[in-house]
């Protein structure tokens, strides 16, 4: 009962203090706002990069060309073996005649040349298009398939894939690092701004200690105050995310430059990002004021 009474009092005092020292509060709030804006932008970029890399990764396939004179059972045999491999997600078979027809439809010259081929002397090869579960192991899987009987050529876009994966990996790591660094910087900035607020109430804190307030009682209003500042500071970034991202998405029709780079759909993505920005703001305000007030609890 006493605990809830104290909690209610803490919350009331925190609100009072935010509005009584409004100029200092405003300093903290704008500091939180600016950093949260950058944090939000970094989160948006990270998620989009992650989205289109995984999109691209899922498009990567291994193409397996089989020997030209392969029999029906041998095809089935190879298919079973590939399907049994750990890293194989799915595979699609395309017969040499289907490929021929496809090419004929695509191009008139091909049509002219290929019309003379009968299904027996078709020089093309039957193929499997294999999708893998883990793209980073695509090379190993490809080499393993290459060793099988009746398999003539295996292609998976060797050099290009490796480079692409490396680049995406780097981009992701840099973006994560930026988010973490920004959050840390925010914490430091907020500790300093809140220290200013608390410094002006040093006397009050020391008197509270002298008349027998426990550290918990003294700290709680400041921590709640930090949370309120964090919340108020998150309002503009959240509005920025919601309206800004939707505007951006609509402007580019969901794609950046080419069909290759696809943006994350706004819903429910922006709500999740907004929520995490609010949580980050409140946590950061909390940690900032808790560590700023600690210094004065030693009298």
């Amino acid at each position, binding site marked *: 009962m006493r605990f809830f009474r104290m909690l209610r009092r803490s919350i009331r005092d925190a609100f009072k203090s935010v509005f009584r020292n409004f100029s200092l509060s405003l300093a903290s709030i704008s500091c939180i706002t600016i950093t949260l804006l950058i944090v939000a932008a970094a989160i948006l970029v990270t998620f989009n990069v992650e989205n289109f890399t995984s999109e691209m990764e899922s498009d990567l396939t291994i193409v397996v060309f089989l020997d030209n004179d392969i029999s029906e059972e041998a095809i089935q045999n190879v298919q079973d073996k590939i399907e049994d491999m750990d890293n194989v997600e799915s595979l699609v078979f395309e017969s040499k005649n289907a490929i021929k027809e496809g090419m004929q439809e695509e191009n008139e010259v091909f049509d002219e040349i290929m019309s003379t081929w009968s299904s027996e002397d078709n020089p093309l090869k039957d193929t499997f298009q294999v999708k893998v579960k883990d793209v980073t192991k695509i090379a190993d899987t490809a080499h393993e398939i290459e060793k099988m009987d009746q398999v003539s050529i295996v292609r998976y876009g060797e050099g290009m894939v490796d480079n692409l994966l490396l680049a995406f990996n780097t981009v992701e790591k840099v973006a994560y690092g930026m988010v973490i660094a920004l959050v840390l910087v925010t914490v430091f900035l907020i500790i300093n701004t809140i220290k200013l607020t608390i410094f002006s109430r040093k006397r009050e804190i020391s*008197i*509270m*200690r*002298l008349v*027998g*307030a426990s550290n918990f*009682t003294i700290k709680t209003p400041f921590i709640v105050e930090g949370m309120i500042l964090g919340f108020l500071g998150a309002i503009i970034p959240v509005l920025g995310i919601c309206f800004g991202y939707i505007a951006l998405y609509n402007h580019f029709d969901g794609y950046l430059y080419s069909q290759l780079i696809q943006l994350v759909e706004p819903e429910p993505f922006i709500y999740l990002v907004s929520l995490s920005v609010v949580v980050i703001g409140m946590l950061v305000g909390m940690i900032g004021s808790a560590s700023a007030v600690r210094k004065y609890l030693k009298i």
Partner: protein
Amino acid sequence: MDLIRIKNVNKQYKNGVTAIYDLTLSIKKGSFVFVVGGSGSGKSTFIKMLYREEKPTSGEIIVGGLNVAKLRNKKVYKLRRRLGIVFQDYRLLPKLTVFENVAFTMEAIGAKKDETRRKVLKAIELVGLKHKIHNYPDQLSGGEQQRVAIARAIVNEPKILLCDEPTGNLDPNMSMEIVHVLEEINKTCGTTVVMATHDKDIVNKMQKEVIVLKDGRLIKHVEKGGYEE
């Protein structure tokens, strides 16, 4: 029964100054004690150690059953709730009224609203400031401000009232008034009062228990008496 027991206490500050040498004494429940001595005699350090603003370098201090020297920073509030403390510079909050200043103690310990109101009014009445209850500290004289500080110290009904030079900023008439308020509290509530002062007139007039410190050593402890240099 001894409410305060001090045994072989030494206090050396970090800058090397030794403020208290091997102090051993005890104070009984319900007594009114003057701690006297000139500047640098260690009386302020003595009071500060009782409410644990300072920790003794060695020795044992027991206040109301709590071992002050071993009290952790987090638990200090347990001691302070048994004490009332009055300072030379009043230490009131300028933005709060008399009532709010006194109620500050009750709020700090999480008391209920009606209990707070009842005890605050009683304490303010005891120090004779009922008519100025809604004034702010800067609208009061020094003596009145000190009386608010006393009300704040006793509102929680502590066993011990510690006063560090409470009359240091006041003229002789005001000083006597304050001491009479303290005596009243001592008699009516049974609160043990420990008052550090260098005002000889007060000590001689009151004829109470006296502890005399000089250069950090106890040189006299009498049940009843005055003080001359």
